[in-house]
């Protein structure tokens, strides 16, 4: 692997790590767009590869936050395990629901959450 490519992967890892530690997000907001922009990944490949990176990054960030005593391990597992079932259901449902409608509804939902957090 070229040094140049390795540097790009390192920059992506560092940026995604910082976002994960700070905000608990990083895959879709950081890794996917950068893999596409900098390394010419296709969107599916970027998403798949990002998931593998996120396993490591979320684990490291969870340990870091755990050292500060911020982690509720039981609650995390209680959310994470049903979420796996949800992701599988959602992926199957994706074939039947118009994506643009879901995108627009979800955009409105996120905007509403942002306002709720701000006021």
């Amino acid at each position: 692997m070229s040094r140049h490519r390795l540097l790009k992967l390192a920059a992506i890892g560092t940026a995604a790590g910082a976002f994960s530690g700070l905000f608990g997000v990083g895959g879709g907001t950081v890794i996917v767009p950068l893999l596409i922009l900098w390394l010419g990944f296709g969107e599916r490949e970027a998403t798949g590869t990002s998931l593998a990176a996120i396993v490591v990054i979320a684990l490291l960030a969870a340990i870091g936050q755990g050292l500060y005593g911020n982690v509720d391990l039981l609650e995390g597992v209680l959310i994470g395990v049903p979420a796996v079932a949800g992701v599988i259901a959602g992926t199957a449902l994706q074939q039947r629901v118009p994506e643009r409608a879901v995108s627009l509804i979800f955009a409105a939902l996120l905007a509403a959450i942002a306002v709720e957090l701000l006021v």
Partner: protein
Amino acid sequence: MEYVAAALLGFAGGTVGGLLGVGGGILFVPALAIFLDEPQIRAVATSLVAIVPVAIAGTWRQRAYGNVRLRDGLIVGALSPLGVAAGVLVANAVSQRALEVSFAALLLFVAAQLLRRGLRGPDGGSTDPARARP
């Protein structure tokens, strides 16, 4: 009761995530903060734990479709600790309010990306790097 709520949040968040290809954090963090009344930093921390099984299952499924460049993904993960440490340090150093406000700004940014994607149509610009993802 709170645990039932947590499990329901997990399932609902996972379903929306699977539908849209957006992942845990962007959903779990605000859900924990708003519905379970967690302070922002605790919402972030607990959501990170929840994301691990989701990402493992996602990797496994995507790998079956040949979408995972495992070596690249693991390199990105292996080279992340400096960023992770910086993020965790800053998150624990700044005020909760600052963390909340900057997270809200991030949500608005992702909402704008989704809006663009929704307005463009179901299959338009599938290689657009700005599409929101987990």
